[in-house]
């Protein structure tokens, strides 16, 4: 189909479904923690502004969570349907990690989600807050297990190969494999940043339309604090992650840098800012270089050396033409995030409400709304394409992992996924953005939008103003069981 082999179609299918999927959990991770913070503020201060923001973001969270669940279900089965040899080979390690993710995270999220979404008037404020915290905790536990699994595939250890399959011998070594701490921190912080950018863009959108209610200002301000404080942390984590990759997956770094040949001793490695890596010609064409900067960034010295692509046989080289650019997109977006945070801090410092009024700043914040998600995608493209041709690094090649389906069958399911995902997640995105457009400061019970009237989540219709009042009793009088 389209001249692609079954292997290529399987890879495109995995890339497509996982790229869609990662967007939703990233926002889920960030929003769940944000909601926990908002509810904590509401319980502490009894300021209705926090309660209104909680319910505003809760509705967006609900739509997003649903999309994360259904797109994630596909992932849980795709390992077996499309990558059966991988599953049979490495299931002894990735299986238990996935099972722990389900047991400790998915059930926790799902079990408390109902109360979080629909239980505002059914349980007391403390229990409701507890449910929110459990959901937020579940998202973080989930990230931990799945990144342990992914990191093990990138930097495997703690196993033996017995009878042609992976056997775990040291689970602590498997889980705390060399790239795991960096990848986990980098991803969780990325999820927080992506959410902060989304929240910030929503606030900026309302501010640009003259809706500068205290609730809008509050969420905008919170998002910018987050960006200001966390973007530099993320850059530092990213730097460390890069050094870790250099140690364990040097071919990936060489491909990211478009670095083909080792330089003369003592000359240092230049940083190629831009260029066109060419896998056939084995060079990076039209390079725009800064001498020695590559050495400085990657070895923290002026004449340090890093492995070059030509150190590796051609069949072991990742596709530099892609990861060179996906990496630069991620870094460029990160620098723009830093700029947004600093610009906001400067406007805030100058005072007089400039942060809420500067139109150029607000427009920039709106445009940066999807930047965090794009950076996450670019980063995952870099790390996943950069570890090719291996599915389990150094142990199993991707071409040996794929199920023996025909290209026609793979092409059919790929086309099906593409059509369904664009329809379903396109509609979901529209609904999320429509929810963003509603007024965060307005009592949701007054919402007159069509379809709202019977919204089961409609959590505020009878919400009391004081969270400390007992709300659990009244709502249960209609129970009959």
């Amino acid at each position, binding site marked *: 189909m389209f001249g692609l082999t079954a292997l290529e179609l399987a890879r495109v299918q995995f890339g497509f479904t996982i790229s869609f999927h990662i967007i939703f959990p990233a926002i889920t991770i960030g929003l769940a923690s944000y909601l926990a913070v908002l509810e904590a503020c509401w319980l502490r201060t009894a300021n209705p502004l926090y309660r209104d923001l909680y319910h505003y973001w809760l509705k967006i969270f609900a739509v997003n969570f649903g999309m994360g669940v259904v797109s994630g279900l596909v992932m849980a089965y795709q390992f077996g349907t499309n990558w*059966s040899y991988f599953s049979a080979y490495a299931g002894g390690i990735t*299986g*238990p990690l996935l*099972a722990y993710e389900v047991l400790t995270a998915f059930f926790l999220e799902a079990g408390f989600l109902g109360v979080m979404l629909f239980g505002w008037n059914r349980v007391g404020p403390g229990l409701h807050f507890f449910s929110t915290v459990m959901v937020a905790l579940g998202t973080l536990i989930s990230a931990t297990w799945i990144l342990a699994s992914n990191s093990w595939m990138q930097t495997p250890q703690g196993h033996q190969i017995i009878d042609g399959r992976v056997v775990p011998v040291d689970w602590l070594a498997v889980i705390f494999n060399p790239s795991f701490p960096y990848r986990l921190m980098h991803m969780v912080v990325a999820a927080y940043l992506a959410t902060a950018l989304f929240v910030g863009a929503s606030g900026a959108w309302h501010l640009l339309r003259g809706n500068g209610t205290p609730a809008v200002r509050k969420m905008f301000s919170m998002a910018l604090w987050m960006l200001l404080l966390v973007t530099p942390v993320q850059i530092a984590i990213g730097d460390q992650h890069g050094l870790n990759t250099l140690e364990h997956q040097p071919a990936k770094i060489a491909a990211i840098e478009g670095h083909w040949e080792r330089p003369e001793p003592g000359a240092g490695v230049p940083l190629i800012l831009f260029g066109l890596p060419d896998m056939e010609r084995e060079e990076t064409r039209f390079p725009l270089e800064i001498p020695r900067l590559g050495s400085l960034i990657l070895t923290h010295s002026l004449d340090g050396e890093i492995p070059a692509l030509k150190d590796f046989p051609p069949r072991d080289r990742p596709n530099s033409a892609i990861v060179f650019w996906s990496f630069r997109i991620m870094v460029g977006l990160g620098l723009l995030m830093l700029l947004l945070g600093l610009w906001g801090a400067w406007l805030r410092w100058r005072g007089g409400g400039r942060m809420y009024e500067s139109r150029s700043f607000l427009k920039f914040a709106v445009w940066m709304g999807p930047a965090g998600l794009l950076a996450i995608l670019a980063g995952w493209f870099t790390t996943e394409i950069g570890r090719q041709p291996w599915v389990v690094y150094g142990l199993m090649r991707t071409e040996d992992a794929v199920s023996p389906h025909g290209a026609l069958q793979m092409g059919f399911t790929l086309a099906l996924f593409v059509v369904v995902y664009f329809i379903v997640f396109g509609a979901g995105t529209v*609904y999320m953005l*429509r929810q963003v457009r509603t007024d965060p400061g307005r009592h949701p019970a007054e919402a007159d939008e069509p379809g709202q009237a019977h919204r089961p989540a409609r959590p505020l219709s009878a919400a009391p103003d004081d969270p400390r009042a007992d709300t659990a009793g009244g709502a249960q009088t209609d129970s009959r069981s």
Partner: protein
Amino acid sequence: MDVGIDLPLLWAVIILFGIMMYVVMDGFDLGIGILFPFLPERGDRDVMMNTVAPVWDGNETWLVLGGAGLLAAFPMAYAAVLSAFYLPIVLMLIGLIFRGVAFEFRFKASDRRRHLWDKAFIGGSVVATFFQGVTLGAYITGIRMSEGAFAGEAFDWLTPFSIFTGLGLIAAYALLGSTWLVMKTEADLQRRMRGLARAAAWAVFAAIVVISIWTPLTHPQIAQRWFTLPNLLWFSPVPVLVAAALYGLLRAARTESHSGPFVLALALVFLGYTGLGISLWPNIIPPQVSIWDAAAPPQSLGFALVGALLIIPVILAYTAWSYHVFRGKVRAGEGYH
């Protein structure tokens, strides 16, 4: 990790338990989607959906546990079963996507567009159920293996038997859904659900009878298992219990009982599930590969088992709490408040 316990056996029990939880719990969720066409009124549909809105996600998670548990404990079976049933599983997943998002989208859509998500909910529920049933039927029939991997054709799963089990499962989930709604609704909606529950009960009974005759006729290894001693003795109570459960269900659906029909529907589904288990045990890739042949290394089984045994009771506890919070009847217009 040789501690003298049969790890594959324990894991098989856990996975069987997880799948049973899934069938029962997502069964009534999916059943509600299957019953939607019989209730065209917006208000009825809102109530029906609201009875499961807070719990459906947890219910579906048992399916993820089934997949993850299979990968963890029996990677060879996970690889073979999912490859063999590639298309029905993908179609089931697509159905579950439409069904799952409809819960939120239906309430977010404009009045003009809502009917589309109602159709997505119906279509998604029916498609997901049908292909679960097809997969089940094809699984009973068996998987062609060679050197530890699936060695059949892309459409091996498509047989008259598997199509029939697909239809049978639609009836079973409709029964679970209608009896669940008898328990969770009242007045006119409940009355109509009582009628639908009776019809679904007869359909399930018919499906069980046909499958019970068809299975041994076309699957000699299962016939041998059923009709030899002492298996026959073990097996003999099952048909009697099925008949008793059906009789009780039809009675309960006619009386004032609110939860009786649901409990008996659970019993009926449980009996069908047990019959299936007896027919296949201890094979995990029918007709030959046993749970011991397909098991992961003991290091994998032991590590995951510790978590499963410690955590599943906790999951059951907070799941029960969530059901407790949302107990009672759901009424039109009031949603959850």
